[in-house]
């Protein structure tokens, strides 16, 4: 009798212990790919980002080790309140652990607050605002692919050093346009160049001829385009029409994606300088990934740097989870682990995540090929210069992130 009771107690204790163990080694993960699925950014993020997330899950090898990982996707429609409501609902109802992508700075910052409140993990790849790792940084956020500071520095520095010492800006009248112009101006003046003027245009302008004429008459050597998306492609197209490039002035697009170059066509885009942190045709590893991506993506598109960032960020996240031995469902803890491990992946190479959440890796200055140099439907870029990881991004001494002041 006594034995039976103690056996029972022992049994109960063992069940409890194993339950506790299971809790510590919870191997379920839910990923939310929150992006613009139908608007301006749907080509560079959107369904392609969801695909990149799925590929990251498959390639991580965790499924074979008994992990259960789901990917769900959502459309924030470029509206901050829709984005934050979806994010909140994902945490509260769907029990999402990590949100990835989120292009559009306004939405990205709104979602940033929700994730901090819910102690989730945020791997942002799509947004440009450097605020995510500065004034509004959180212990839950990793900003992967690029930001305004990096774009401004890499492109600005390289062009001034190669003789482009006088600039004129076409700037989108938006916070991120102003940030790009401000950061680039700082680099230009620091390197001995000067800014002759700038003009702010409203978002979604279809005609740039007036602005281009002003840029033309400024006689600046470089016309910096501090805008994005349709505004950038239209200004490049119309600059060609007004003979700006053939007249000796050079265009520098501060934010340009692979999909934009595809949209403009090489005829018009040739000779453009700009910075990205990923290009599909860099080396064998990126080519192998991109080939697999292209087989499954819509219209067989190659991955943009944003989509590549979703993939690489998640791969690193999985490595951190594996090192933790399970998913603690504790955002701060996971992000701390991510920051403590150096990053290395097929797409962005070696790097690290700084204490403010900024993932650093090399940045590349590209030039768009001439149509005669292009050998395939996505063969667009040639590499001009590489900026090493530790010089490409905001130095920690300049970061305004409160996490650094501990």
């Amino acid at each position, binding site marked *: 009798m006594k034995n039976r009771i103690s056996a029972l107690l022992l049994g109960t204790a063992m069940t409890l212990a194993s339950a506790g163990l299971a809790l510590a080694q919870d191997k379920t993960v839910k990923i939310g790919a929150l992006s613009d699925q*139908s*608007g*301006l*950014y*749907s*080509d*560079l993020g959107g369904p392609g980002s969801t695909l990149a997330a799925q590929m990251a899950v498959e390639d991580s090898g965790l499924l074979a080790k008994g992990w259960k990982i789901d990917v769900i996707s959502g459309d924030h429609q470029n509206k901050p309140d829709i984005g934050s409501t979806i994010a909140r609902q994902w945490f509260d109802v769907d029990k999402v652990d990590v949100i990835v992508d989120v292009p559009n700075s306004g939405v990205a910052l709104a979602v940033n607050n929700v994730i901090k409140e819910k102690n989730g993990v945020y791997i942002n790849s799509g947004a440009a605002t450097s605020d995510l790792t500065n004034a509004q940084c959180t212990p839950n956020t990793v900003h992967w692919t690029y930001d305004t500071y990096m774009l401004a520095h890499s492109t600005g520095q390289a062009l001034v050093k190669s003789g482009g010492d006088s600039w004129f800006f076409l700037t989108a*009248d938006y916070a991120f346009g102003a940030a790009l112009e401000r950061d680039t101006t700082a680099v230009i003046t620091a390197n001995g160049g000067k800014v002759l003027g700038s*003009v*702010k*245009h*409203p978002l*979604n*302008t*279809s*005609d740039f*001829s*007036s*602005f281009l*004429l*002003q840029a*033309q*008459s400024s006689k600046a050597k470089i016309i910096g385009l501090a805008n994005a*998306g*349709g505004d950038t*492609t*239209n200004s490049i*197209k*119309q600059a060609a*029409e*007004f*003979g700006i490039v053939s*007249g000796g002035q050079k265009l520098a697009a501060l934010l340009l994606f692979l*999909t*934009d170059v*595809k*949209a*403009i*066509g090489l*005829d*018009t885009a040739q000779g453009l300088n700009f910075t990205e942190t990923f290009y599909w045709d860099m080396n064998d590893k990126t080519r192998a990934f991109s080939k697999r991506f292209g087989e499954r993506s*819509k*219209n067989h*598109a190659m991955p943009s740097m944003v989509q590549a960032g979703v993939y690489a960020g998640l791969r690193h996240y999985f490595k951190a989870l594996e090192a933790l031995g399970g998913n603690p469902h504790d955002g701060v803890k996971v992000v701390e682990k991510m920051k403590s491990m150096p990053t290395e992946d097929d797409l962005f190479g070696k790097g690290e995540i700084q204490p403010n959440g900024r993932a650093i890796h090399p940045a590349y200055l590209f030039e768009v090929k001439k149509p005669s140099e292009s050998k395939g439907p996505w063969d667009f870029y040639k590499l001009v210069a590489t900026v090493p990881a530790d010089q490409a991004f905001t130095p920690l001494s300049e970061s305004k992130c409160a996490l650094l002041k501990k």
Partner: protein
Amino acid sequence: MQALYAQLLVGLINGSFYALLSLGLAVIFGMLNIINFAHGALYMMGAFCAYFLLNIAGINYWWALIIAPIVVGIFGMILERTMLQWLSGLDHVYGLLLTFGIALIIQGVFQNYFGSSGLPYQIPDALRGGMNLGFMFLPVYRGWVVVFSLVICVATWFLIEKTQLGAYLRAATENPTLVRAFGINVPRMITLTYGLGVGLAALAGVLSAPINQVRPLMGADLIIVVFAVVVIGGMGSIMGSVITGFALGVIEGLTKYFYPEASNTVVFVLMVLVLLVKPTGLTGRAA
């Protein structure tokens, strides 16, 4: 001063797009009493049509100028036959809502198949290059746009105000029952008018394809401004919308020079001012 001349000319070029688009809207409003929110989407279809003609069928820009408006015009007539005609006699709001829904569908479908960043379309070889006017470099294509749209605007005005067909049309809007009693097929005329208005939008689309990206949302950004042009000109007034279209282009051009941030807003300032002084627009009749 030279810079100012350049801005005026550039403004005039933009004005020709506004004029063509608002002309189509005015024709449709004048004859069908429908505020056609789908106008931007149909303009976009015109540009896409030119792209397909060139890249799939190998048909060049010049033929696209004729074929695209016809194709999109027929599409518009189908819309009118199947949906819009059921709204005659109802409040403007319903026409607005219906065409808004149609615009969402068209834009959504195009976005699904062609993405959001758009497709390239080159300037035809004959219109490449530019000439130096002394005060500015004028691309030949831009010059062509101004001349061509002026011709189209005048032709449309002539068709509606000066021909037999136009007289029937105008009569049919005033009193459809009476015109029908004369043995004229009024519903068919209305369908054709809608086709004409839509065709004008598609024509503007083809004209803009080499300048702007051919994007699914290219019309969505423009439609609200064109609305404002039509209202300022006086709803339904053909001459009013054409003149306002060109004038707004010029005013916008000047704004782009003096206060560029406000260049998308200046049209609304104008609209408030005009409506305060002249309640039905510059040349409009009562709503």
